[in-house]
């Protein structure tokens, strides 16, 4: 039996995040939970919207709706099935995992060329312009399951893969082979008070995420680029759907 054949017998998943824009009130809990879970240091005073490190940004897109009403759009890494960042990385520091669909970023491998940041049409990648620093005493509250990144490397959302690792370890300890979906929930999904975020395996046909993905109200940002993101958005407003899927949003 070859290596490929044996690997293919392992369970495969397509982890997908669905964001319901009708439910999102822009509170920013997801972004805060993400920063705490993933040891993102507080931004230094000299940083700005371009130079700070953010894995999940909640954009206030007032211009989307002609009535002037705000639409809040939380944008983490879109976890593309056809990720442009993987193609451009000269270090193989970004990698598409066929078993989970997660686009994994390995900061220690990164040389800081930032090609991936240029290639990413969603602006979800951050460069560490400064060494990470925490206020006195806050280091004790860091998450030991996530390694901190040094100055000079790029980082992004990994769909809280450390929680998948923990779920797998728990599964192995129990003598099982596949994880319980309830054990793998990213921090942003867990934190959302209005339950605008749903997370799960799109390969599970009976799961909530697979059903939401088929819904006509679901769409992808910049769908025409063919990056096939595994972060889907939903809105009951056809104008929001049409404009966001066509233009996406830009930073700032």
């Amino acid at each position, binding site marked *: 039996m070859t290596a490929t054949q044996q690997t293919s017998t392992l369970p495969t998943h397509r982890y997908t995040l669905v964001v319901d824009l009708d439910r999102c009130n822009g509170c920013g809990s997801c972004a805060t939970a993400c920063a705490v879970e993933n040891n993102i240091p507080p931004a230094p005073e000299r940083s700005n919207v371009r130079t700070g490190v953010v894995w999940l940004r909640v954009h206030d897109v007032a211009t989307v709706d002609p009535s002037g009403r705000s639409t809040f759009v939380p944008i983490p890494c879109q976890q593309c099935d056809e990720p442009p960042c993987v193609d451009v990385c000269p270090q193989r520091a970004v*990698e598409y995992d066929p078993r989970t669909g997660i686009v*994994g970023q*390995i900061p220690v491998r990164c040389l800081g060329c930032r090609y991936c940041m240029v290639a990413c049409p969603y602006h979800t990648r951050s460069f560490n312009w400064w060494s990470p620093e925490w206020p006195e005493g806050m280091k004790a509250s860091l998450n030991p399951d996530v390694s901190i990144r040094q100055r000079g490397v790029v980082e992004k959302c*990994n769909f809280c893969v450390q929680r998948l690792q*923990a779920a*797998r370890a728990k599964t*192995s300890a129990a003598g099982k082979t596949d994880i319980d979906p309830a054990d793998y929930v990213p921090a942003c999904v867990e934190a959302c008070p209005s339950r605008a975020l749903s997370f799960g395996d799109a390969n599970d046909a009976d799961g909530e995420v697979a059903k939401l993905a088929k819904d006509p109200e679901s769409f992808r940002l910049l769908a025409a680029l063919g990056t096939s993101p595994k972060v889907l958005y939903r809105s009951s407003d056809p104008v929001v759907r049409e404009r966001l899927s066509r233009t996406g949003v830009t930073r700032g």
Partner: protein
Amino acid sequence: MKLPALVSFTAGLVPALAAGWLLFPRLIYKTEAQPLPFNHKVHAEQGMACGDCHAVAEDGRFAGMPTTESCAGCHAEKGENPAVNALVERYVEPGVEIPWLSNARQPDNAYFPHAAHVTGEKVACARCHGPHGESTAVRPVQVNRLSGYPRDIWGPSISRLRREEWQGMKMSDCIACHRAGGRESACIDCHK
């Protein structure tokens, strides 16, 4: 190459190699003593398995070093053995943890689930840790002064020639085993 040139080249090369292969390893690693002596062999002869003290928790996390409480299960009181007396006096009675030093601590960005290997795949502890359970004394830990990693990550031999299968815990050692078993996967399976 003329003879004088060869002589002077060799005269430079030999000390340089000697410094690199013999002196540098002594300089780069500092040796730190363990807080207590410990005889693994004596414990193993009582019928104890590795997992009796180095346990995998129910949620799959590996506890690593045993707690003072687990030692106190058998060694609650002083006896004739000076090592046991030191354990009871310094750690059991005050109720503090023993600051054991690890020979196998991986870098911060590496994630190694013991549950997946030991419980799931039934890999023997000795596959990576060697015949540690047969040792009569705990080794002092050699720590790389630059990286802070213990020497066992690289393995005892700087050249990595003629090493035992279990010696060395570098990424290439992990990959070799995974490749042999057809278990190659994503970077983020083992990195955090």
